[in-house]
């Protein structure tokens, strides 16, 4: 039996590396100054898919929705062992909230078909952790969120350990199933050098002047779809189709408190402690 695995990979700005020159004057983040990377949890999701492929037999398709540049995160999935890759890119995606994003991605998943869909638990930019369960709903699949370990896959089911607020749970769900994977699940492999040499030339048809079939034969084609090709309901996406809207964003302004400067000497500190005991901050 060969399972069909789909891994969802989002291209995100590396928000963990925000430095001074990535900040705008108004205090917002200048995303163009941040490196774009595959969302960290998604590499753990990919690793689970590759584990399923190696232990139980599977094909692994990576899908990303984003700007044409997001082809890069798909290349990185190919370096690590994905069999093929699909980029959904369309200007009409702009402004999509999680529900709209999930609708679009679920249409792409339905187009290729999947027994097991894997995504990251959450992205490091949007951070909502909502896309996984919402896709599961739209493709009518079972869901296992917060996966910390893959246990078993058999003909009709998948078993994992979920990591929860206070402990863990071993759960078995029927296929098709969506897993949202945490960074505790595994140590993602780095891309193999031979694969890297081969797949660094993988590209979408939009970026290729030659015969696309040639690319496809060499397995170097990143399939690119727009919304019409995957049957998206346009009333459910973009700014207008998204239920949530951003009413406003504001830079964080901290209220100034009355601050007392205390000298770092025993006298200074003892006086402060005395004051805190008197006003019952210390009992």
């Amino acid at each position: 039996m060969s399972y069909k695995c789909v891994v969802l990979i989002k291209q995100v700005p590396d928000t963990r590396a925000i430095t001074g020159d990535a900040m705008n004057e108004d205090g917002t983040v200048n995303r163009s100054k941040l490196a774009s990377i595959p969302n960290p949890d998604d590499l753990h999701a990919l690793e689970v898919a590759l584990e399923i492929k190696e232990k139980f037999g599977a094909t692994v398709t990576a899908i990303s929705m984003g700007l044409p540049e997001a082809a890069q995160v798909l290349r990185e999935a190919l370096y690590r062992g994905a069999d093929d890759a699909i980029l959904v890119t369309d200007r009409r995606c702009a402004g999509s909230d999680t529900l709209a994003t999930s609708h679009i991605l679920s249409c792409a998943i339905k187009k290729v078909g999947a027994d097991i869909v894997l995504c990251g638990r959450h992205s490091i930019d949007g951070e909502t952790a909502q896309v996984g369960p919402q896709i599961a709903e739209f493709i009518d699949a079972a869901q296992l969120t917060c996966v910390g370990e893959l246990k078993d896959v058999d003909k009709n089911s998948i078993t994992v350990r979920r990591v929860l607020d206070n402990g863990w749970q071993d759960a078995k769900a029927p296929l098709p199933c969506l897993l949202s994977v945490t960074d505790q699940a595994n140590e993602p492999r780095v891309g193999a050098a031979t694969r890297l040499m081969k797949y660094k030339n993988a590209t979408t048809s939009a970026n290729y002047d030659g015969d696309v079939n040639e690319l496809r034969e060499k397995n170097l084609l990143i399939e690119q779809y727009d919304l019409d090709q995957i049957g998206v309901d346009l009333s459910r996406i973009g700014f207008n189709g998204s239920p949530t809207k951003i009413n406003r964003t504001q830079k964080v302004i901290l209220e100034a408190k009355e601050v007392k400067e205390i000298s770092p000497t025993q006298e200074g500190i003892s006086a402060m402690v005395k004051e805190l005991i008197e006003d019952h901050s210390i009992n």
Partner: protein
Amino acid sequence: MVDVNKKGDVWVFVESLGSKVEDTSLELVGKARELADELGVQVGAVVLGSEIAGLDERLICCGGDKVYMCQDPLLAHYQVSSYSKVLCDIANEYNPSIILFGATSVGRDLAPRVAARLGAGLSADCTDLQIGSHKDSVTGKTYDDILLQICPAFGGNVIATIINFDKWPQMATVREGVMKMPELDRNRKGETIKHTVNLSKEDLVVEILDELVTEKTVDLKGSDVVVAGGAGIGSKENFKLLWDLANALGGVVGATRPAVDLGYISEEHMIGATGVTVRPSLYIAAGISGALQHQTGMWDSKKIIAINTDPDAAIFDVAHYKIVGDFNEVIPMMIKAIKAKC
């Protein structure tokens, strides 16, 4: 999709363990009370489970007007398939205007799935909820009395206000401790409504093979004094000094995310946007720069002492006592002063 129902109540999805309602749910009932009063509607609390008798009383004392009791042996263990079915059914029947969930393992698993089925918007990890209005810049139309869902975005540098004016109910998740625990009012009256659940075994899709539920070992939220350390503490050994100070004060030790990532202390001690929110009487921050993601978890503390070698550290912006100095020297002085007074 549920219609926009301006007269709809403000609901809370209630989580319970044994005979106890989870704190997160009680905190949300407190917030729902405020929102409902502003809207002139009622607070509904929805309880699902197999043995839930008695929980309604507590929810009413905390501010609930109507408690919907969905009792069924098939609801003994949380599962997204069965719980989402019951919750969507009851939401379709009563048409609430707002549904709030705790941002817990259960809430995060359930809320997005319910939102997807209802075609509703959902915002994650709100730090505040208010009632207000929104003017649509395209149509020029103004929407009054809608839920303003306030949450940090872009790594916390910006506060975004999310709204949802046409696809209801308005849904949001909130982390434990973010909203204040409401005061108990034993004289409050409310109504208990038994809701008949329509489930069969087929609705239990997932098989739970084994599970381990551990008690929380650190009670950051319940503690009156928190001594927190950041990356500036430099090592696990140095963190011992913070434990000594916490012990002298009868408090607990907290930490920033880098301190946890660097292995100085375990994750359950983390304070901030992705950790716990605390409001102790006294918060001592040592070797902490004061990034917004950390501040959002501690700035409501009644008194804040900050110790940092950098006089321009952002933590001083929220501090009441500013000590520019090395924690290695300052903390022993504090311990000495405290021991002398007791």
